[in-house]
């Protein structure tokens, strides 16, 4: 059974501000996600963490409201507001009872347009703590080390939270300047989803945005990351019980023409229902080496190429067996096309997963933002199943063959002992 075609209202204001709204969900709730192209991708070289610091100040007071007044005015309505800071974007996210949509939009725009930049030192302390927390977690240490190894000096190598030196250099003037340049209507997309009338909700948002002056300066995109053709190994000693392993190399951007073939490959190799993907079947279900094992090519793909990678955590004595298994499964998808049955199952899984993602208003709003930001077309969900159904085993094989370089893998191990690494 397919989803009904959705009615989505879309508007682009004269100042470049984009609004998408859609009626969805079965509860009397709405969510509004305001997405600003102001993530850590745009951090200046000597100020790693500036994007997160700017985002961190947004809830510390805006317009006439102090931090506490702002929180009270939202939460008293039974609504929530938060700010999430990532690599490409910063998202101001709200959710609440549908009757307070206009009140919440008013506060959301106040936060985006007129923050007070209060309590910067406290915000920076929190960022330092977040970095320390990341460094406490062997999983995150392992993932970050793989990004650093593969992206080198490219901004994608760094945590969106920044680094201690960058944070130490951030001043009030930096935050104000970053906000002035980045938080402009032509770099914003707003998605409103819930028990709403799309046209009316879009109109409410437009009324809040249409007097916002555009920035006018072009985005300074980083140079594309360069792919290294040599294998590398990095070992990080940490007093933990398991050894965490990441293996991979540079992947594809989201707009790569093979993107959906790679989604099918991901479902076959590393991320399917339960533990039905090849890597999980082998390393977990057959060999009992790990609780978690997975791989993906598309999860981190965006404006810049993401990673083709696999991750697992295992006992130190099982590192060799785990790496050997990953290598063999990588080789298998390069050497031979998957069976038609595998591709058919992967396609069914992906179509079903999209249905699940579209079940919540948050999931639906996030999808609308992705569709708009990458120019995928508002009808892209309607044709998703038929596009996937046209992908053949040889397409998946060709995608794997064209990307996966078995001799150019980077391996990172984080654990209590330092194993000999080779893949």
């Amino acid at each position: 059974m397919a989803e009904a075609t959705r009615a989505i209202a879309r508007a682009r204001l004269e100042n470049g501000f984009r609004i998408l709204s859609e009626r969805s969900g079965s509860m009397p709730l709405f969510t509004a996600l305001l997405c600003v192209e102001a993530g850590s991708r745009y951090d200046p070289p000597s100020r790693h963490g500036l994007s997160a610091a700017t985002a961190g100040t947004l809830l510390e007071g805006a317009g006439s409201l102090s931090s506490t007044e702002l929180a009270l005015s939202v939460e008293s309505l039974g609504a929530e507001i938060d700010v999430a800071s990532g690599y490409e974007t910063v998202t101001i996210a709200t959710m609440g009872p549908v009757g307070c949509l206009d009140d919440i939009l008013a506060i959301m725009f106040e936060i985006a347009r007129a923050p007070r930049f209060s309590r910067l030192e406290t915000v920076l302390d929190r960022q330092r703590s977040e970095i320390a927390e990341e460094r406490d977690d062997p999983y995150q240490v392992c993932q970050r080390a793989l990004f650093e190894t593969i992206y080198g000096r490219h901004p994608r190598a760094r945590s969106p939270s920044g680094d201690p030196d960058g944070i130490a250099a951030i001043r009030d003037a930096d935050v104000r300047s970053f906000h002035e340049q980045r938080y402009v209507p032509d770099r914003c997309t707003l998605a409103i989803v819930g028990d709403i009338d799309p046209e009316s909700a879009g109109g409410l948002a437009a009324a809040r945005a249409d007097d916002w002056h555009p920035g006018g300066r072009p985005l300074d995109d980083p140079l594309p990351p360069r792919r290294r053709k040599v294998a590398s190994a990095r070992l990080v000693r940490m007093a933990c019980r398991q050894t965490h392993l990441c293996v991979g190399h540079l992947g594809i951007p989201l707009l790569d023409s093979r993107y959906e073939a790679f989604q099918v490959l991901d479902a076959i190799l590393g991320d399917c229902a339960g533990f039905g993907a090849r890597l999980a079947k082998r390393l977990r279900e057959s060999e009992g080496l790990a609780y978690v094992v997975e791989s993906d090519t598309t999860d981190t793909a965006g404006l810049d190429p993401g990673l083709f990678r696999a991750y697992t955590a295992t006992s130190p004595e099982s590192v060799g067996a785990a790496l050997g298994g990953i290598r063999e499964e990588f080789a298998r998808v390069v050497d031979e096309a998957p069976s038609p049955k595998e591709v058919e199952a992967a396609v069914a899984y992906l179509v079903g997963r999209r249905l699940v993602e579209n079940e919540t208003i948050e999931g639906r709003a996030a999808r609308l933002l992705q569709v708009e930001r990458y120019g995928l077309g508002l009808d892209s969900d309607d044709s998703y199943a038929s596009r996937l159904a046209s992908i053949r085993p040889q397409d998946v094989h060709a995608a794997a063959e064209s990307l996966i370089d078995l001799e150019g893998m980077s391996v990172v191990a984080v654990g209590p002992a330092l194993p000999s690494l080779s893949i």
Partner: protein
Amino acid sequence: MPAMTDDSLTTVRREHKFVRMRKSRARQSDRRNGRAARPGTPGSPEAAPFTRPPIERTLLENGLTLLTVELNDHPLVATVMLYGVGSVDEPAGKSGLAHLMEHMMFRGTREHPAGAIDSVTGRLGGLNNAVTTHDTTSYYFVMPAAEWRTPLALEADRMVGCELSELAFEAERRIALEERGMLDDDPEALADEELDRIAFGAHPYGRPVVGEREDIERLSVEDLRAFYAAHYSPSNAVLVVCGDVLADEVRSAAEEYFGSLPGEPLAIREPMARGAECVRNHRTIEERHAVPQVVMAFPCPPAVDPTTPALDVVASLLASGRSSLLYRRLVEERDVAVDVAAYRVLTRHPGLFYIAATLLEGADPAVVDEEVSAALEELKSGGLSAAELAKGRRLVRTDVLRARETRLGIAGGLALWEALAGWDVGWAYEEAASGAGREAVVAAARAVFDEEKRSSVWLRPRGR
């Protein structure tokens, strides 16, 4: 919503939660209506009423309870098969048994050999997983609605036909030990597990659901076979089917798949020892982690106690959002924490109300103790404004609606409440929670927050 996300890190540790709460892997472990549009017109912030979808309860002759929920605005169906067995039912020295049994339920039957459940699920465009808690073990599927019969067939097959071979057991035990290793490396889980140990003492709720390493190593396939025989039967199970289905058709199919299964009488449970320890208790753990954590707990009544819905409002007032009592004190005013949480877990027996804080690097955990005590006194004194109380109720209401946003959320909640006291009690509970008045809230706070019964764990960096 996360305060800070790194979109370069994927959700490797995916977990389903039937209720939104602080991640607490120590206490649960997974195997991995027509409406008028209200386009934001200014008006009352009260959430509009949500019409309950049709829910029907059927008791099969063999004791299986079936709940069907017709919800046809999205072409999905969720099924939850909940067994009234959890880690509390493990014999002493055999912790991890219930959780290992949950893993084994995916290891196959004669009809569906190892791997078949996952491959069938994927091929039909579905998802599956399972969750073990202290009280229950739940298996779930989310499927395109047209495939709703398949989960029923799979559940019926493995309810009686799970193949518990020595070989599969050994493989699954290795996986469970790796899961144990993952929790050992997680500071939050470390603190949570230790808190349950000191707060519950000898009570089975004190055991980690995943199990203690030495217990998992000692388990045998015979232990597993005995556990399966004692607890996996229709009379100890609740099946919920929620989504774009017709109740009549689901009932017929349930009779077809489950009706012939033998209804074993339920094992008589040993009476529980006392609940949480009724004395003040504290433990400091010094570990490699740089970021300190403080977790604390107070004994609280079981889920079915009529006074407990107000505790959800108490939790909201304490830690929901940046205007909450604890956030203001710990994050805004004293600058010692980056995040706070307050929640209780719905339990069959008396359980705990938890408060947790992640501190700034170098912050003193003692400050958290002081500020929590002051905030709890503020609540108990009854001095909160009417606006503050209304805010707490509205946030609880929004949480209830969010939990009912997905078919799985509804099915999971109904299954749990049916096992505890009846689904309708749970539905009414959620409504009551968002309507709790001042007297109920203050009375609940006074009943629970007794400083002489507080257990706490500080996790702080070694050598500092």
